[in-house]
């Protein structure tokens, strides 16, 4: 045995030597691991029981007995939530994912912030005036607002941040969210005009003037997005490449400040005492952790380590009657994109037949069963309409299930084509999309009697195939950036292969006119008509469902608001009983 242990020892020494150089600063605890090669698990259990207590002691929110059952109170003002993906970046002109948006929204603030009812409320600005042609907005900043390091927040900070987002430095692909609206934005991006000529100016420290290309009734809503948050030029420039990499390389303007940030582990937030509305921020600490596995998150929630957990569809059935159960839907539509130039699908009757053959209520209620809702149109439930009714209520159900009609249209289409087309559905390889595709495939089989093949690729590969016009139809989704139907309808005007090579003069004109229209009622009618053309007349896409989520939340937490679009979670209003 001597030789054997010697050998094991050699191996371990070599390996420790190899990895030692890469072990970096986290010195933590290697010792217990390498002490004994013979011992199995008993001694380690004892050792860890003690360390376990230490962990518990350092984390205020965890109950002293992490043993299970019983609702542990989330005491002393800490909320712990999680994300299912890494927080990739905290640099706002590089951020394009929900995880980053969540953090940014809670440590920064724009001119306006979404309230508990998802409507914009004055934040760093106290209000605005708008010119008669609805093209010039003048914002007045709140008195006494300052960055977390004490520097006052001025209108210049907004100009700097917005120019950064509009200019060539922005890598998040969100420049359109300013350039489409602000005068000379696109030209600035292309280097054709100077910064001074762009339609955003600091009149003085307290006044910000914005010139728009077209009247934009939802412009105030845009200012709640992270791209519109201010940045202090002096500080950002002084940090150089390191800006946003660590907590200490940032200063904050929102309700919270970051105390630690690791893209893979998560972030910890602490109340920002310099925040103008600090008096109304009740929860002192917020942890955002990263858990990728659904059932692991549920286990952590039950062990009292999380304040909120998302449920999978099978868990929903079990917890439906639990007092901690809630569900909510998002402004995000998943739909079938037909390629209008692909063989077979260039026939509108075939496209209609496919659309009519899907029973979306089964998909939402039985298959997904997670709070998702059956789609009735491109624009999801809840998106603003005329103020009294939502857009969806006004336009009705444009994608009904009707197997008889489906068969009729299919027969007609096949007759026109001369033969039944062979179809392949292109999808991305995540598990939800696969489930949806399997369902849709079975509906085609049951209601049209056709076998549709499914081709699943990585999302990059799927996008490339679509961009190269190399697909028949695909499952894609679009989430609203702001609460207005235009966020969806605008997409089908460019005629790219990704949008099914759709080009319809009438449609394009309706959208273009709606963008110029100052009368809100007329504008709305144009958008309602546009949606009908897209879905009913031309059947370019077929909506499937609006994403929702079901979750458990500790019963002592109130007002932990999740917005259905844009920046999702809002900690500012949360209360712990």
């Amino acid at each position, binding site marked *: *045995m001597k*030789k*054997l242990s010697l*050998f*094991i020892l*050699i*191996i371990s020494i070599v390996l*420790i030597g*190899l*990895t030692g150089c890469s*072990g*970096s600063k*986290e010195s*933590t*605890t290697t010792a*217990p*691991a*390498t002490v004994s*090669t*013979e*011992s*199995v*698990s008993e001694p380690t259990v004892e*050792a*860890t*029981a003690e360390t*376990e207590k*230490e*962990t518990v002691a350092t984390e205020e929110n965890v109950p002293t*007995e*992490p*043993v*299970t059952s019983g609702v542990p109170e989330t005491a002393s003002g800490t909320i712990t939530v999680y994300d299912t993906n890494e927080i*990739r970046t905290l*640099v706002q002109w*590089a951020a394009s994912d929900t995880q980053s948006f969540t953090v940014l929204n809670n440590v920064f603030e724009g001119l306006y912030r979404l309230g508990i009812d998802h409507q914009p409320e004055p934040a760093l600005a106290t209000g605005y005036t708008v010119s008669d042609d609805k093209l010039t907005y003048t914002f007045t900043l709140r008195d006494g607002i300052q960055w977390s390091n004490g520097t006052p927040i001025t209108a210049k900070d907004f100009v700097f941040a917005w120019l950064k987002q509009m200019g060539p430095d922005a*890598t*998040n*692909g969100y*420049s359109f969210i300013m350039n489409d609206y602000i005068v000379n934005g696109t030209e600035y*991006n292309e280097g054709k005009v100077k910064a001074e000529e762009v339609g955003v100016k600091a009149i003085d420290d307290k006044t910000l003037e914005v010139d728009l290309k077209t009247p934009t009734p939802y412009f105030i809503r845009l200012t709640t997005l992270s791209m519109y948050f201010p940045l202090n030029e002096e500080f950002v420039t002084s940090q150089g490449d390191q800006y*946003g*990499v660590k907590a200490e390389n940032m200063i904050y303007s929102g309700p919270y400040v970051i105390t630690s940030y*690791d893209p*893979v*582990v998560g972030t910890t937030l602490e109340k920002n005492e310099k925040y103008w509305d600090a008096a109304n921020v009740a929860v002192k600490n917020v942890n955002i952790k990263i858990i990728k*596995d659904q059932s*692991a998150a549920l*286990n*952590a929630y*039950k*062990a009292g*380590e999380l304040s909120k957990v998302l449920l999978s569809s099978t868990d929903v059935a079990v917890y439906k009657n639990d007092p901690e159960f809630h569900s909510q839907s998002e402004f995000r539509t998943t739909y079938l994109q037909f390629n209008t130039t692909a063989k077979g699908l260039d026939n509108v009757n075939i496209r209609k037949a496919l659309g009519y053959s899907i029973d979306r209520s089964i998909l939402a209620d039985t298959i997904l069963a997670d709070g998702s809702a059956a789609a009735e149109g491109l624009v999801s439930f809840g998106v603003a309409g005329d103020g009294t009714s939502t857009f969806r209520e006004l336009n009705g159900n444009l994608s009904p299930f009707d197997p008889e009609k489906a068969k009729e249209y299919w027969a007609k289409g096949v007759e026109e084509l001369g033969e039944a087309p062979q179809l392949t559905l292109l999808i991305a390889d995540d598990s939800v999309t696969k489930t949806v595709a399997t369902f849709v495939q079975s509906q085609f089989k049951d209601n049209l009697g056709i076998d549709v093949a499914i081709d699943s690729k*990585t999302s*990059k*590969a799927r*996008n*490339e195939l679509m961009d190269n016009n190399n697909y028949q139809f695909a499952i894609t989704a679009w989430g609203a950036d702001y609460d207005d139907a235009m966020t969806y309808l605008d*997409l089908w005007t460019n005629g790219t292969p*990704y949008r099914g090579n759709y080009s319809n003069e009438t449609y394009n004109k309706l959208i273009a006119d709606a963008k110029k229209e100052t009368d809100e009622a007329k504008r709305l009618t144009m958008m309602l008509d546009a949606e009908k053309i897209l879905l009913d007349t031309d059947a370019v896409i077929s909506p499937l469902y609006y994403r929702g989520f079901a979750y458990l939340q500790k019963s002592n937490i109130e007002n932990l608001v999740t917005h259905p679009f844009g920046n999702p979670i809002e900690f500012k209003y949360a209360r712990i009983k």
Partner: protein
Amino acid sequence: MGKYILKRILYLFITLLIIITATFFLMKRLPGTPFDSERFSQMPPQQQKQLLEKYGLDQPVSVQYLKYLNNLVHGDLGVSFFYTGRTVKDVIFGRIWPSVLIGLQAVLLGLAVGLTLGIIAAWKHNSGIDYFTMVLAVLGVSVPNFVVAALLQYYVGLKWGILPVAFWGTWAHSVLPSIALSFGATAMFARFIRTEMLDVLEQDYIITARAKGLNQFQVLMAHAVRNSIIPVVTILGPIVVNLLTGSLAVESIFSVPGIGSLFVESIKSNDYATIMGLTIFYSAFYILVVMIVDILYSVIDPRIRIQGNKDE
């Protein structure tokens, strides 16, 4: 021996260069760009060009390759696209440690349990412990480690509350992932050593040793184990590399910020610099381990002499 090691190190660099070259050109053929695909296809072409220019992605691949090599020689692995602003060095080194800790513990646990069980099983052939070992060995390879991990988390973590359910922090957090990870390795070690031992125990020199009157334990240790260990050394290399470079499933179940998911993520998001950095790290590590294993051969089995010496 010294000359031989020097030669192997030279080979190591040549092999690495070939791997870097092949991976670089293959990687550049991956579909899409490192940018958010949906947003990118929605951008006007002029902006797309601007972004590609910013990162030098508009140049011919061969030019990009030479630039990369040049930077590499100067110790610069580049900047990650996925984690904006972070250097690849930071991204990788920030995540190596948890994987290595868990992997190392799993290997040691696997070796200790697997070898012990395997040796006893062979020594007491067809006894209860032999059958037990065989069942364990079969379960170890046929039950996927994510199922083991999920069960450990549910029972040990949640129901019994002995160890933390998930997350990373103290050493206690590393115990369950290590055990989950060691399961497969234990099974492999146990099986291999058992098979080899059974073989060796029938060899003439064992009979001779016994005939000489050595006691059973000495025979077992001095002759049988030493001669049985070679195939274990062979599989040890790949297993060590596999375990130390992280496991996607175990890391995601226990929320361990390790390197396992980084590979899949970086490839799926076309994070070129990170893919290259990981490839270099992974293959250098693999080659080193293989080299060490080859050298260990000659230490353990006196009959195998490193060939390099004779030929030159």
